[in-house]
């Protein structure tokens, strides 16, 4: 009996020792696996949500699809792994996913001490408040003493505390595990207000039993740049994920869309030629094929298409481009040049 125990424990230790391995090159791993593992939200309309057939849609989902198209040439070669806010960083740190694209706010702590790198911003958001119209509240500064539903493990909790403290108001934070649970708490009148990023509030509002009975207050109390995240210490992969998004934003700027990308291959504009790889070796220096953006644009489209399809004015969320318009259109979306 004891011998068996001893042998077993030795075997386990051996396995553990083997578990210590050098940092893998994520790009090679993804190419070897033929599939990108992408961490997404466990259901947020417009950002990442599975439909009844199990197909994922949303702007965060499309961000992953674009990376898969660039690296593997197939935007469907993605395994989507739904994660709660609380699980997301551990999943990325432990190597369970290759890229985290889950409406995650870029902050100093996350960028430094968590061992993560934010590759850019695919949606500029800000925290707001959703209230029942029946309460007759018109400003966030009238919320003294309110009960607030929110989701655990988000920057939202901290901004909420800061806002109420800065304005010398009391509040009661009712913290739920998932955003659906927090919306349910709001729907059931456990809270007077629901707080989250305004894009999320727009999405959650569509799921209330009476969406007309709730409105988003005008005040935006924080900056929430949301974007894809990769592990720190793998610069090659960091560059790939970063430049796929920049490529999509640049493509919009130069008018390349999924519809006209094949015509644009003959374009004489050197900017377009560099994006599409007909000139220069942008793909090669990133470790990809030179025409990687052609696959991205054909299969996913440029940033504007991604926005319109998932969260734009014609979707249930009905969000305007606003801050997320290109810098040439009065927004702050500005990608470094392909050069």
């Amino acid at each position: 009996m004891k011998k068996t125990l001893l042998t077993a424990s030795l075997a386990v230790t051996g396995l553990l020792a083997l578990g210590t391995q050098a940092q893998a090159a994520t790009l090679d791993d993804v190419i070897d696996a033929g599939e990108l593992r992408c961490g997404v939200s466990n259901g947020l309309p417009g950002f990442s949500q599975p439909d009844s057939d199990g197909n994922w849609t949303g702007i965060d989902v499309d961000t992953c699809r674009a990376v898969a198209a660039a690296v593997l040439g197939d935007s469907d070669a993605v395994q989507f792994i739904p994660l709660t806010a609380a699980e997301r960083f551990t999943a990325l740190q432990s190597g369970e996913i290759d890229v985290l694209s889950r409406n995650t706010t870029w902050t100093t702590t996350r960028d430094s001490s968590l061992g993560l790198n934010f590759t850019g911003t695919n949606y500029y958001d800000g925290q707001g408040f959703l209230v029942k119209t029946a309460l007759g509240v018109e400003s966030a500064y009238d919320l003294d003493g309110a009960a607030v539903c929110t989701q655990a493990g988000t920057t939202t909790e901290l901004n909420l505390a800061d806002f109420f403290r800065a304005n010398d108001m009391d509040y009661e934070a009712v913290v739920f595990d998932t955003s659906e649970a927090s919306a349910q708490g709001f729907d059931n009148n456990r809270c007077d207000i629901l707080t989250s990023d305004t894009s999320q509030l727009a999405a959650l509002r569509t799921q209330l039993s009476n969406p007309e009975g709730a409105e988003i207050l005008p005040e935006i109390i924080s900056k929430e740049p949301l974007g894809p995240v990769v592990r720190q210490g793998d610069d090659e992969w960091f560059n790939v994920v970063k430049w796929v998004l920049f490529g999509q934003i640049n493509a919009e700027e130069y008018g390349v869309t999924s519809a006209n990308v094949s015509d644009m291959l003959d374009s004489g504009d050197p900017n377009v030629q560099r994006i599409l790889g007909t000139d220069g070796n942008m793909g090669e220096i990133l470790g990809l094929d030179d025409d990687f953006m052609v696959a991205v644009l054909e299969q996913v489209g440029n940033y504007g298409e991604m926005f319109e399809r998932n969260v734009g004015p014609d979707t249930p969320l009905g969000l305007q481009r606003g801050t997320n318009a290109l810098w040439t259109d009065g927004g702050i979306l500005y990608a470094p040049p392909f050069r």
Partner: protein
Amino acid sequence: MNSNDLPTRPGRPKPWNDPRVRSVAFQILAALAVGWVGYSLFQNTIANMESRGISTGFDFLDSTAGFGIIMSLIEYDESMTYGRTFLVGLVNTLLVSGLGILLATVVGFIVGIARLSTNWLVARVALAYIEIFRNIPLLLQIFFWYFAVLGALPGPRQAVNVGDLAFMSNRGIMLPAPVFGPGSGWMGIALIAALVGVFFLARWARRRQAATGQIFPVLPIALVVIPGLPLIAYLATGMPVTWDIPEMGGFNFRGGIQAIPELGALLLALTLYTASFIAEIVRSGITSVSGGQTEAAAALGLPARRILRLVVIPQALRVIIPPLTSQYLNLTKNSSLAVAIGYPDLVNVFMGTTLNQTGRAVEIVAMTMAVYLFISLAISLLMNIYNRAVALKER
């Protein structure tokens, strides 16, 4: 050779054949292996986290938390540290577990005894209760109490009003809070004096009964003295205690004591679920006491209630205590389901929000696990001491 003249004493066997030496050697080896596994796990984790650029250490406990917690028995606000959030979560876990254990024991004993009642209706109601609550998953019960029962209460502006003093709404139960003015310390002293007095009175009465057989009515006296002495102190010191009555203001009631619905739902679910198991344990304990004991006690002329209290239950406790301990441990660990409805227990506050804000997953999970281990071992220890006290003493 005269080897067969004397029976040869068996010499000491070779050390590797000596069962004692072998067992000690193997135990040392096993301990070393376990230690080595633990050590390499630790080293491996640290090395991997370092190589991935993740900060480690417990220094985060001194940083400012910056987030609010809905309920805290100890002083807490956003400007306090992450270490403080650990304590807030711990106290909230202890509160719900402690209250749950107390209530589940009371309900469980009542239902368990009712289950054996000769009254058909009472026995069947108890049986139905046990079978329903024992066989529905606890998480569903928590959701039921939270969303279907407490969530269905009216909003604070239409709260159920109990004599303008207490209010019940979907924000919880608001009760008047006592405000202790100067001089109210005398009431505390009076209460302690009453408790100590009753304790010694009970001891004296027990001795007297053992010596003379005469019974002294301790309970009625205790019921008068324990609330009576503080009341006299209250009147004598000029009624120093005033009441802070909850008042509707803005979104919710202000003032008074608020019991949040998350606590209510969790406590109800944990109590009723665990009580159904305790009831079965109590029933099995009572059934294990042979019928001859009851009959013998009845033959001595003891009334039914005394038979239960003096003969059956003390013997049944020997069977009840060990499985009861397991139920207490289960209840404590199940209290971590709080996270589903947002009750700020240790798992919700510390392993939820604090972990996410700091990212120190390994440290925080280890601390939380250690806390549950410690609480469970403490409960076991206490229950084992109690078990030894009630166990059959063989003389």
